[in-house]
């Protein structure tokens, strides 16, 4: 079983559209949508949900006002400015202390050191994850609650479940839609995968972010291939990206042209390769040939 992760230093480079098309072209695929912050794959490949599961990635503190003796220890010890003090403006200190759940990191310091034992410290539900069927194969996806953390843990969970499912159903390929950036969700998306496909755009910011994310895949020793989306928007920067790739010894596995049918495909909830007339579809087929060769090449 081989794992391919599609990533991009920057969001909006066309990662999800590429993932959906590659998944359509691949055989025996399991999809893992690891862009848990802005999971969009389900918009192109509408899932039929089979099961949903709560995700708890951490804990959360909660002050029981009735037990609180207003000593302020929690506020003094909290390093995340998550404890709100009594409302002094209205002159009613009885309103007490409370915890801003969007700021609480779940460290447990306030709960442990509260002399009145007035702080509950319990598992937080940070999101949900799902097993679904799509027209190209099963998909594991998730939704992280708003303002929740631990997306790295959720990404690892989604990947692990995708691996289990692929093993059970004897599917040969897992395609992972990674998240943007270079932080914890991305690291969790790429560690231990067989190949990273880096989707970039020929813009100054695309080039800049490509360097950062290429450093990241190098850091984790993940074999990497670059695809340049909308390459014809700026052939000069495309040439610069090719030069950068050459210096870094990363193959450019495909060039996808600027094509308005990409938006049309999104609106009609189809993958680009399902639109026969779409010029970019040919580019994506070629990209999959290159990627599949690299992915299934004997080491």
């Amino acid at each position, binding site marked *: 079983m081989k794992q391919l992760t599609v990533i991009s*230093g*920057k*969001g*909006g*480079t066309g990662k*999800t559209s590429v993932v959906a098309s590659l998944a359509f072209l691949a055989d025996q695929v399991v999809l893992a949508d690891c862009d848990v*912050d*802005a999971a*969009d794959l389900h*918009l192109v490949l509408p899932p039929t949900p089979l099961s949903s599961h709560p995700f708890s990635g*951490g*804990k959360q503190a909660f002050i029981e006002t009735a037990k609180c003796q207003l000593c302020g220890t929690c506020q003094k*010890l909290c*390093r*995340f400015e998550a404890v709100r003090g009594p409302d002094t403006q209205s002159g009613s200190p009885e309103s007490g202390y409370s915890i801003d759940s*969007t*700021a609480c*990191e*779940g*460290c*447990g*310091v306030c709960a*442990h*050191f509260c002399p009145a034992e007035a702080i509950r410290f319990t598992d937080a539900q940070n999101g949900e994850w799902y097993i679904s069927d799509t027209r190209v194969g099963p998909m594991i996806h998730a939704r*992280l609650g*708003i*303002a*929740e*953390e631990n*997306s*790295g843990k959720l990404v690892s969970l989604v990947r692990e479940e995708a691996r289990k499912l692929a093993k059970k159903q004897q599917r040969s390929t897992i395609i992972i839609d990674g*998240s*943007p*950036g*270079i*932080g*914890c969700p991305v*690291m969790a998306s790429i560690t231990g995968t067989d190949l990273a496909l880096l989707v970039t*755009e*020929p*813009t*100054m*910011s*695309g080039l*800049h*972010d490509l360097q*950062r994310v290429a*450093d*990241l895949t190098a*850091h984790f020793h993940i074999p990497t291939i670059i695809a340049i989306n*909308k390459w014809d*928007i*700026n052939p000069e*920067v495309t040439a610069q990206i090719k030069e950068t790739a050459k210096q870094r010894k990363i193959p450019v596995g495909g060039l996808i042209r*600027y094509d308005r049918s990409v*938006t049309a495909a*999104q*609106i009609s*909830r189809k993958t680009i390769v399902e639109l026969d007339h779409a010029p970019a579809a040919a580019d994506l087929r070629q990209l999959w040939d290159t990627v599949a060769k690299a992915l299934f090449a004997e080491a």
Partner: protein
Amino acid sequence: MKIAIASGKGGTGKTTVATNLAQLAASQGYQVAYIDCDVEAPNGHLFLRPDITSDDTVHVTVPDIDPTRCNHCGVCAHFCQFNALLCLPGEVLLFPELCHSCGGCQLICPQQCISEREREIGQCQIGKAGQVDFVSGRLNIGEAKSPPLIHQVKKQAPETDLMLIDAPPGTSCPVVESLRDCDFVVLVTEPTPFGLHDLTLAAEMVQLLGIPCGVVINRSAENDEATLAYCNSRRIPVLACLPDNRKAAEAYSRGELIAQSLPSFNQPFTTLLERLLQQTKHTGSPQQRCHP
């Protein structure tokens, strides 16, 4: 007045809106600061091209265990919610990138043998792009958590009439850290199903934080209806529509500010700035500080 520019999804044009607004407001005589909080993929400098005057390392604190006094009792590792400490029979191992710097281990150690040391997580650059004050954060490669860096970057922002915060994409902790204490949030979206889906998540997040918001539709064309209908149903004002234009994509690709290089974009940005100043007036933020 602090205005954050955010979006559920990346690549919708946050940096385009933030940098063009900063430049435009400065040209109208406002004191403006542009703060790049997208520390995983900072891009503002590519468009504003600032002269950097200081480039400082940003640190977080991690525990420093005195091995001569530690008796490997394991209380610290048991307390740590982030698995940053592992107690072995002969030593305590620290995984610094997992540490949230809560200080709990130090407080709880029965031997009182834990102090704190600093660990580098990224850089903070300060400079000036014409009349615009510029601050930008850059997370080190391999570093997992951006919120502590974002917190530090925001602290470096100078006092100005108008502070524009370029937020990272998504709706999780780095974004929340960027939006904290802001008076208004501009949500940049594009009129596609992806854009609308992520806009709804971003709008929920902003609502949860209790900050007023407005929408900018980027790459606006004939397909805006669904986005307009959503904004209307949620009573979110649409502040501007920036037309879909291949010339704009090309100018962006060269690192140009579109409000400067394409005359047709000057008007929408001017309107956007005016509306923003009006909107924030309605929200009761200290408008009197904001005068040309």
